[in-house]
């Protein structure tokens, strides 16, 4: 008779306490795999994926689908699309090789030949006051007004630097974030003001993003966190990571998650801050930090952020995330075809059994390296490294 491992020669059972100890030792004390944390759930595969299921899971969040992608084959100047900006029925796409304007179903290209400062177009905004289009390029700031292009550079104006990472129009004023500081242009007086580390609380003179809201200008200062400029009091203040360390974050909710900030956007009383290390959210009193390991955020590497009402749209190197403080709705393209998926996390953090639910999508954004986003009524436009995509709200 063969001996059982669990029985002695006299066929007595091994003492139960010993078996329990062995069992718990094996099952209970095995270390979790890398990246897994208590309360963090793995992806839950979809069982049903009707529109109703998706909308129910998304709760109050808008969900987009029916994606259509535009590339050079459709007339886009280049597939590398740095930014996208909507102006009523026009779509402006800033690409590596010029400005693409989509109107009446067709793309038209504007470039250096037409008078734009440089073909590399990083940022665009439209003045609500005048309808002028302000184009931030790799070689200066161009104002498109009344069919004419006029360019500001370091040599012909008070522009801080010719590389314009971000531009925003606020009434008569235009603000830019550049490689040499933030610039403020008063279109009435034709005066420029430059803000950098010598006259503003910036650690460094470099800026990467600028937005307006709540009578304030918010500047994403590379290495200096977020700079707030109060347009009424004309005073600055800064928001930096309290732990003062570049390599770590001690507490996630104690301030901006990192001093290297890449974008800012303000709406509905909330400031959204993009970094290459995670997302920060600030309601004027409290900061919250979100990371890819503890929330629905697709990646900590965030290229751009835009607040649209209560929802923040986060452009990452792994897809497009959206979040309203309660629910995450994410959009990712599948690797080897044009289909994609919608990932929904019903909870701000991946704790207490909160799970990611995945819904397949026949269409998807052009690429997961997302660089910009804007809205056109119920439609969304997404700039990526491999084309610009148009989606419609699922109802």
């Amino acid at each position, binding site marked *: 008779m063969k001996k059982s*491992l*669990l*029985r*002695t*020669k006299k066929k007595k059972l*091994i003492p139960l306490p*010993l078996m329990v100890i*062995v069992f718990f*030792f*094996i099952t209970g*004390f095995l*270390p979790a795999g890398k990246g897994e944390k208590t309360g963090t759930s793995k992806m839950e595969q979809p069982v049903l994926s009707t529109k109703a299921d998706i909308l129910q899971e998304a709760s109050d969040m808008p969900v987009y689908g029916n994606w259509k992608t535009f590339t050079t084959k459709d007339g886009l100047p280049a*597939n590398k699309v*740095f930014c996208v900006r909507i102006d009523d029925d026009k779509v402006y796409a800033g690409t590596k090789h010029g400005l693409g304007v989509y109107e009446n179903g067709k793309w038209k290209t504007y470039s250096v030949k037409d008078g734009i400062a*440089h073909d*590399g177009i*990083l940022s665009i905004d439209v003045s609500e006051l005048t309808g002028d289009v302000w184009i931030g390029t*790799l*070689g200066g700031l161009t104002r498109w007004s009344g069919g004419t292009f006029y360019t500001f550079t*370091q*040599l012909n104006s008070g522009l*801080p*630097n*010719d*590389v314009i*990472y971000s531009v925003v129009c606020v009434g008569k004023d235009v603000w830019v974030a*550049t*490689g*040499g*500081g933030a610039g403020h242009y008063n279109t009435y007086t034709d005066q420029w003001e430059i803000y950098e580390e010598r006259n503003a609380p910036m650690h*460094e*003179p*470099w800026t*990467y993003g600028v937005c307006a809201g709540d009578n304030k200008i918010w500047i994403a200062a*590379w*290495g200096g966190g977020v700079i707030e400029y109060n347009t009424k009091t004309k005073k600055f203040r800064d928001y930096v990571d309290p*732990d003062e*360390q*570049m*390599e*770590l*974050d*001690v*507490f*996630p909710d104690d301030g901006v998650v*990192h001093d*290297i900030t890449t974008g800012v956007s303000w709406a509905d009383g909330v400031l959204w801050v993009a970094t*290459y*290390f*995670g997302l920060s959210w600030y309601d004027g009193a409290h900061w919250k930090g979100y*990371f890819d*390991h503890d929330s629905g955020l697709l990646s900590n*590497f965030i290229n751009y952020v835009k607040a649209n009402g209560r929802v923040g749209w986060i452009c990452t*190197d*792994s897809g497009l995330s959206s979040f309203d403080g309660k629910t995450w709705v994410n959009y990712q393209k599948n690797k080897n075809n044009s289909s994609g998926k919608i990932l929904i996390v019903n909870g701000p953090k991946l704790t207490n059994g909160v799970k990611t639910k995945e819904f397949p999508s026949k269409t998807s954004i052009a*690429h*997961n*390296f997302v660089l910009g986003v804007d809205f056109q009524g119920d439609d969304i436009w997404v700039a990526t*490294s*491999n084309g610009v995509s148009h989606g419609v709200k699922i109802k």
Partner: protein
Amino acid sequence: MKSVYKFLLIFLLVIISGFQLSGQEKGKKKNYANTPDEIVPYERFHKPYLNFFDTPQLFTGPGRNKPDPKGLKEVRIGFLGPLDSTELVPQGRQMLNGCILAIEEANKNGGYKGIPFKLMVHNDFGLWGAAANKVVQMDDEHVWAFVGSIDDINTHVALRATLKLEIPMVNTGDPDPTLTETRIPWLIRVISDDRQSSYALAEYIYKVKGLTRVAVIRVDNRYGRVGIKEFREASLRMLHPLVLEIRYREGDTVFAKQIQRVIDSNPDAIVLWANAEAGGMIIKQIREKGITLPIFGCDRLMSPEVLKIAGKDAEGLVTTCQYNPTLNNPKLKAFQKHYYERFGIEPDVFAAHAYDGMNILIAAIRKAGLNRYRIRDVLTDLKTFQGYEGITGKIIFDDAFNDIGSIWMTEVKNGKYHFFHSPLDTLVVK
């Protein structure tokens, strides 16, 4: 004991020992940038919520499938450095020379598949924020990658434009620790940074020499501010907070006020974070005051200019240095010989690291082909060039693509710099 109990006992022992081994292996994992345990931020108080550089940042954008262009007559590589309008011109020239020598040698060895490499040279000083504009120019010139720069502000400005334009960047001269802590996956650095210098100095001053009260005189610019930060924080965490940190302005030549403040703070050592010229003057004026305290300094004080200005007063000065030019390494000796023959001067630390960095870049282009994305992939794969034996020594990249290889120390004896190992050398991954 019954056999089954023996089995279970052995089974438990194996599991327990496995856990112990696992724990030891975890313990062996190096801190970020080889930071000694006692210097890790907040180590004594709170475990950080997140360490950002436990894994390398990937680049997930498209572009790797673009084929090599046809009909090229030259393969362009950019150079960005201080060549005009700044006190860093001598260092910039040395850096340029190092790149030129590497390019010329590569072209003698066939260039890229028979096509010669061509250096596209750009000065990063002049117009405000010029570095960003120069990177745009290099993109317009269709460079495949570039080497640059030395000044920390200009290098940061260039790096940001690099990310937008997706050009691989090899830095060989900027020791600012924050440069590679921006998480931009288009940059590698082939020179030890001020974090490594600070750790070596702190270990040497507090542990080897047993000193406890350090006063710092530093330049009042970004180099001084960012450079001294790691030393200041290391001192604090080693329970020897600085007794004084005082600044001087760039261009100052008289340092009486700073030296008096040092005397008043009653230190047992002085640390200087300064460029060579100012450092030499400070040392001389300290000794003229009759102060005999030991003086330590950053790597920029390992310079003939310091010896020239301070003369015999430089005796005993201890500095860090990113490599040891006196090593009897045949590759290093050949480089020094060829460099002197080509340019008529001795190579400095910027020339040597530029030579290594450019050689790494050329090897990456040859391996990856003419595609920026694939060149980036090779540069940052942490395999191809991990442990690269350069003329400056073995280059070890961490997950931030930063060189954390050995750093050296020097002491001035009889008017010459004598090199010795950093006390932290044993921490370096071999």
